[in-house]
């Protein structure tokens, strides 16, 4: 008989997320549902405000991808008002973006996703000398893998491991699970990088703060450009960025890259990470300007995994629907006209697999009705995957030279066929390849900025907002989790309507009216789970998307209804005014 398994909270992500699967006697997932369980309503809050205030407010959608929404929101206002920002500002924004991407990806692989791949307890039985030599197989200049260093890492973790309570944040995880594939030596190498990455991420954050004032939530963009003119005119400041950049690029090339090559080697026979993905449609948007008309990322759409054709994005074809989301107005809507009235119908009572394997009474998703605060975005009615893998595939298929080089080198180094990219492993590799693309190429923007400053020191365009005019615009691009778009309408000098369609919404959305599933849910179906009380396979797949759920849930009514007048009964459903 089939059983239901709930994972809630899914930890090591941003936000509040629940996954539920229905598993047959053979341990294979027959159906899957993913629900976001927090709603904040930022878009209704945006309404009626001065457009210049919106970027800093929208930045608060997320403190992890802490620059993404700030940037796209600023761009949306600029697009609406018809502002062309100075070239210097474009380049500075790219330099901050480079820091964000490398930060997000390093932290994601090591601190969020890492322990789905790396068995920390197994690392304790590693031979340091062997591990130290092994590291040279994956990198010519390995980082943090000298014999003595590895010995110290082992000692440090051994102290933790002696006392199960003492494992602190590592306590009660799925150590020893049979789907872990690294040898003890490989685990030790990755563990050393986990610790090293804690320091590295702080340096990357400083890199952003040089031009951003702080991280998280930098504060140096204004509608029209950037405000950090003193910093970019200061050679010492520029030098500081450069030195940190080189440290990070070295880590990306010699630790992160090496570890993914190692993962590709060891996990390419592990079914839970090689299972073909459920949705093979990909979408990505141009971003990361490094010079005039020179972008690291390309725009395009790939359908059914066919890399021989890349379609241009038709922005009119982007919709969101709420058939299975806790909102009224089920039908698909374009973001410029989106409505989002909450209609919480809660969970239902039922029995699910408990922590000891016995059935336990829980609150379950009611999949026949509404079950998530995330809506279902569709492109031409189809679900799409967005994210670093989509970005790399689109760039590759379009023949972007820098992208093609990075991808081909990786395929050659690992011997993995291109088809294997359409998997959880591919998604994890795609993220690293994007970090490498940036580490290898973003300094082009740095050099162009220095050159340009010699002849032009403009950093911020001036503009006026005509209160008698109506404006609309959008800010679009690819951010660390994928294609992000912010859509704004301005009337009477204030925000009339605001919507953001974010990467995690594309990936984590529930079913649509036709029953078509989004990437998270579709990917879980067919997955074999070895032990229902330790569903690491589920977490591994979900984590490979780098979920950012506060990002995904943000949407709100745009038709002027005052939502606090709704009274909603959380358990029995229905929404009464």
């Amino acid at each position, binding site marked *: 008989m089939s059983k239901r398994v709930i994972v*809630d*909270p899914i*930890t*090591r*992500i*941003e936000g*509040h997320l*629940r996954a539920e699967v229905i598993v047959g006697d053979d341990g294979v997932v027959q159906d899957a549902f993913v629900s976001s*369980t*927090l*709603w*904040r*309503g930022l878009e209704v*809050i945006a309404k*009626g405000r001065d457009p*210049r*205030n919106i970027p*800093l407010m929208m930045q*608060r959608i*997320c*403190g*992890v991808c802490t620059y993404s929404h700030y940037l796209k929101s600023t761009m949306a206002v600029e697009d609406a008002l018809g502002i062309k920002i*100075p070239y210097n500002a474009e380049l500075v924004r790219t330099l901050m973006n480079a820091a964000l991407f490398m930060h997000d990806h390093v932290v994601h692989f090591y601190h969020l996703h890492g322990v789905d791949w790396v068995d920390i307890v197994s690392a304790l039985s590693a031979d340091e000398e062997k591990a130290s030599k092994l590291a040279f197989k994956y990198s010519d200049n390995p980082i943090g893998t000298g014999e003595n260093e590895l010995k110290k890492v082992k000692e440090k973790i051994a*102290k933790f491991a002696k006392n199960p*309570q003492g494992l602190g*944040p*590592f*306590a*009660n995880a*799925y150590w020893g699970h049979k789907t872990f594939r690294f040898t003890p030596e490989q685990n030790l190498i990755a563990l050393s990088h986990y610790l090293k990455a*804690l*320091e590295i*991420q*702080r340096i990357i*954050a*400083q890199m952003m*703060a*040089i031009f951003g*004032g*702080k*991280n998280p*939530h930098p*504060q140096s*963009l*204004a509608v*029209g*450009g*950037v405000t950090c*003119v*003193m*910093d970019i005119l200061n050679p010492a400041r520029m030098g500081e960025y450069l030195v940190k950049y080189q440290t990070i690029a070295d880590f990306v090339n010699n630790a992160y890259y090496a570890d993914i090559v190692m993962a590709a080697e060891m996990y390419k026979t592990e079914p839970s990470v090689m299972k073909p993905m459920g949705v093979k449609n990909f979408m990505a948007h141009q971003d990361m300007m490094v010079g005039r008309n020179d972008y690291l990322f390309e725009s395009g759409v790939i359908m059914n995994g066919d890399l021989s054709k890349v379609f241009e994005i038709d922005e009119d074809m982007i919709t969101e629907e709420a058939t299975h989301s806790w909102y009224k107005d089920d039908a698909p809507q374009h973001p410029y006209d989106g409505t989002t009235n909450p209609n*919480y119908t809660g969970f239902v009572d039922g029995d699910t697999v408990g*922590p000891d394997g016995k059935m336990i009474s*829980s*609150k379950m998703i009611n999949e026949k009705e509404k079950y998530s605060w995330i809506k279902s975005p569709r492109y031409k009615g189809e679900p799409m995957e967005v994210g670093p893998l989509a970005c790399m595939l689109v760039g590759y298929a379009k023949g972007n030279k820098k992208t093609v080089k990075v991808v081909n080198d990786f395929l050659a180094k690992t011997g993995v066929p291109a088809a294997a990219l359409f998997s959880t492993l591919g998604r994890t590799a795609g993220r690293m390849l994007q970090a490498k693309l940036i580490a290898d190429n973003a300094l082009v923007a740095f050099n162009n900025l220095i050159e340009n400053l010699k002849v032009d020191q403009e*950093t*911020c365009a001036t503009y006026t907002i005509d209160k008698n005019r109506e404006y609309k615009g959008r800010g679009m691009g690819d951010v660390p989790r994928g294609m992000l778009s912010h859509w704004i309408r301005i009337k009477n000098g204030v925000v009339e309507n605001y919507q953001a369609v974010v990467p995690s919404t594309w990936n984590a959305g529930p079913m649509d009216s036709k029953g078509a599933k989004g990437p998270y849910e579709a990917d879980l179906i067919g997955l074999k789970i070895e032990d229902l009380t330790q569903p690491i396979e589920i*977490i591994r797949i979900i984590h490979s998307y780098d979920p950012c759920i506060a990002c995904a849930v943000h949407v709100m*009514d745009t038709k002027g209804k005052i*939502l606090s007048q709704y009274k909603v009964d959380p358990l029995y459903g229905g929404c009464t005014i």
Partner: protein
Amino acid sequence: MENSSLFDKLSSRLDELSNLPKLDDEVSISKLIEEKGFSRREFMTWAGAMTSMLMLPASFTPLVAQAAEIADRLPLVWLHMAECTGCSESLLRSATPSIDSLIFDYISLEYHETIMAAAGWQAEQNLHNAMQKYKGRYILMVEGGIPHAESDYFLTIGAHGKTGQESAQEACADAAAIFAIGSCSSFGGVQAAYPNPTNATALSNITNKTVINVPGCPPSESNIVGTLLHFILYGTLPALDVYNRPKWAYGLRIHDACERRGRFDAGEFVEQFGDEGAKNGYCLYKVGCKGPYTFNNCSKQKFNQGTSWPVQAGHGCMGCSEPDFWDKMGIVHEPLGDRLYHTVFGGLGADATADKIGVGILTVTAIGIAAHAAISLVKKPKE
């Protein structure tokens, strides 16, 4: 005299805490600091800096050092409510390896969804176990506003669909000390801005216990670490302002120690981003800086280990450590006088005149006195 009695009080509290069992007998923070290659001298320099940040006399440095060394008696539970994880991120940015971060590495982080390895049932077990095992002893830090009252369902956590409000209340019940980290848990935050569609509120509104607010969006890592040290030194009740913010961190206005203060005094203002004034570091008041109305130590502590802070990056302060700043601080890039929304002080004192004073008279003392007077009028202690 006063100092010596305070010294005695803090000493005896530290002695008391030192007698508590360590969470792990194998190692101690002082040993760890040594292992990381910090000399005693460096450690004491850091303790001295912390002492001055905590607004204690320099003679208290040994006590602060001792407080840091016995931080390993502290189990910590960190809960996520309606938030963006920015405060956790700020904590993770804590230092390049520095003593601040070591302290956080070393206190026992029992529950923290962003970094813990366990998930689902196992994660819930960890929380439950920590709350049982360290009943009455754990520190609770909460990040995020709390959808409350009859709309608490806007946040549920766990297979039993428990609401965020219920989880937070349970965790508050047996905590030794409760800290609202960030402006969301301190005051409701961005989701509580008008019209507050989810009825999000401050942590202090859903518990009867004392909550110490550490606002900021996010607060700097030093304010988070300092809060912990302060708790070790004092127990749960540091000197607080009317918004329950520790005075050591939130006692001064941004404006008071701003690096561009001299420009303000001289009447040199950035008129437009990117202009000559901006290149020369003029005062940002006319492009919307809310430093004169904002109580925080950003201008002294900065962010990311002193790398920068918004005013240094040419962008005014947005007032993020003040209650309801989204609604009350007006337009980010205009002086407070020109505004669409209600302002912090409801049109009183500085609020009504700051713009004119700032731009016209340019008398620092006038604005300072006016702001202070207005704040004293409006900020009444909580009942």
